[in-house]
């Protein structure tokens, strides 16, 4: 019997200790401060407060110090509160940035004032005190410098900075290069880049055809065949025209004329009844002219 009572007592004791830790409203509280010495006029001091609070416990923003002048020589420039959800509740990270404007005559101990943070849950307020923090500030200049000593009494004006034109220069270079590339592309589209080998295939044959007499049909046919073979990359025959158009679709509109040309060639070279005709030479010249226009993108 007494053993049972003792067992129940221990269980009760264990549960009460556990419930106490679970009900702690703030499980972690830490104020992180920088080095407490070596500050001078205008320096910033960053203070960080880390808090782990249970779920539902809300930090009262009104309990935070307000931005602006804290006292004659201390400013609070920035407050940054980061609130993240954790398994147990919420994790708060409060960053405070102070700035000092104290001109001590010698090294002097100063104090960041403390304040009390308030949390609220179910109408109850829980307070947590952020203690005041001490640090030392030092002067920047000797006490006894006088204007007539010939030493530097005050720092001179900062000269006006020169304007940076790197961005404009980069933009100018990039836009001019783009314009150049686009102009070259347009020239290529309009066939103005006649120095390229692509535009040289029908140029020379047309010149040769112009010099030939109308009776020399054999030479005319040979020149035209040679030009078409060069364009095709291998000898081109009539039965290969469909494949040729697939590779060079721009020449598709010349289908009738090319068919006529191959028929004419077949008749001239392989038929016994062939005879030179002035019209045929002219037609071959016209075909070459059309091919030249296509290669220069004019058709």
């Amino acid at each position, binding site marked *: 019997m007494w053993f049972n009572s003792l067992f129940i007592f221990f269980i009760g004791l264990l549960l009460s200790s556990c419930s106490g830790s679970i009900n702690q409203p703030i499980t972690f509280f830490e104020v992180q401060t920088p080095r407490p010495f070596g500050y*001078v*006029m*205008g*320096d*910033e001091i960053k203070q960080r407060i880390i808090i782990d609070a249970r779920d539902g416990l809300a930090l009262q923003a009104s309990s935070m110090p307000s931005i602006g002048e804290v006292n*004659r*020589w201390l*400013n609070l*420039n920035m407050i940054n509160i980061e609130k993240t959800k954790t398994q147990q509740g919420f994790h708060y990270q409060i960053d405070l940035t102070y*700035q000092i*404007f104290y*001109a001590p005559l010698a090294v002097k101990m100063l104090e960041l004032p403390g304040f009390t943070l308030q949390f609220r849950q179910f109408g109850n307020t829980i307070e947590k005190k952020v203690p005041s923090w001490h640090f030392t500030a030092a*002067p*920047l*200049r000797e*006490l006894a410098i006088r*204007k007539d000593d010939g030493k530097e*009494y*005050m*720092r*001179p*004006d*900062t*000269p*006006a*900075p*020169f*304007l*940076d*034109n790197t961005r*404009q*220069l980069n*933009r*100018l270079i990039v*836009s*001019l290069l*783009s*314009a150049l590339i*686009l*102009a070259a*592309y*347009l020239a290529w*589209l309009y066939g103005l880049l006649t120095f390229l080998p692509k535009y040289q295939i029908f140029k020379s044959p047309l010149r040769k055809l112009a010099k030939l007499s109308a009776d020399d049909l054999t030479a005319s046919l040979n020149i035209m065949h040679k030009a078409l073979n060069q364009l095709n990359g291998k000898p081109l025959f009539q039965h290969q025209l469909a494949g040729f158009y697939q590779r060079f679709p721009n020449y598709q509109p010349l289908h009738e004329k090319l068919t006529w040309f191959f028929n004419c060639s077949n008749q001239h070279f392989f038929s016994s009844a062939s005879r030179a005709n002035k019209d045929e030479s002219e037609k071959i010249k016209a075909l070459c002219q059309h091919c030249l226009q296509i290669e220069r993108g004019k058709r």
Partner: protein
Amino acid sequence: MIKAIRHYTVWLALLAALAIALQSMYSFYQIANSNQLITQLNQGKELKSEQLKGNVPEVKLARATYLKKKHRYKEAQASLSQIINQGSQKMQAITRYNLGNTYLTEAVELAESMQINEASALAALAKQAYRQALVLDSHYWDAKYNLEVAMRLLPEMDRITMEKDDPIPEKKAKLWATVPGFPRGLP
């Protein structure tokens, strides 16, 4: 149809590229011109008023420095006040620091000629300008140094609070309960 669209698209892109190139060239020329004016002012040469019109804050800042060198403090302060909120954060810090320098230099000159009241007012303005510069840039060492100079010239004192002292009782003024008038009735 597709060929025509492609041609028009390339033409449009070419025109856009040329427009951007022209605009960049104009901006580049303007910046070069402003830098030339800053150099001219740094060398101690005055500008014509039309050269300053509509120009960037950096040129006005350079002119303020020029005016301060010529002891034309009021004009320098007016020029700096015009551009106090213009430009980048760094630029704004420089403007405030130079304004503080203008006030402080004038304050020192007035103090030397024993015009203490005017000097105190200007030193207070200088401190305010340096503090603002340091809020914008806490690593501005020249502003730190000169703020300390200004504070030595015009030290700041905490107000002494006398909590234990009894407050001075206010003398209660007697108020008329009624509007005074002529006494009525006679025996």
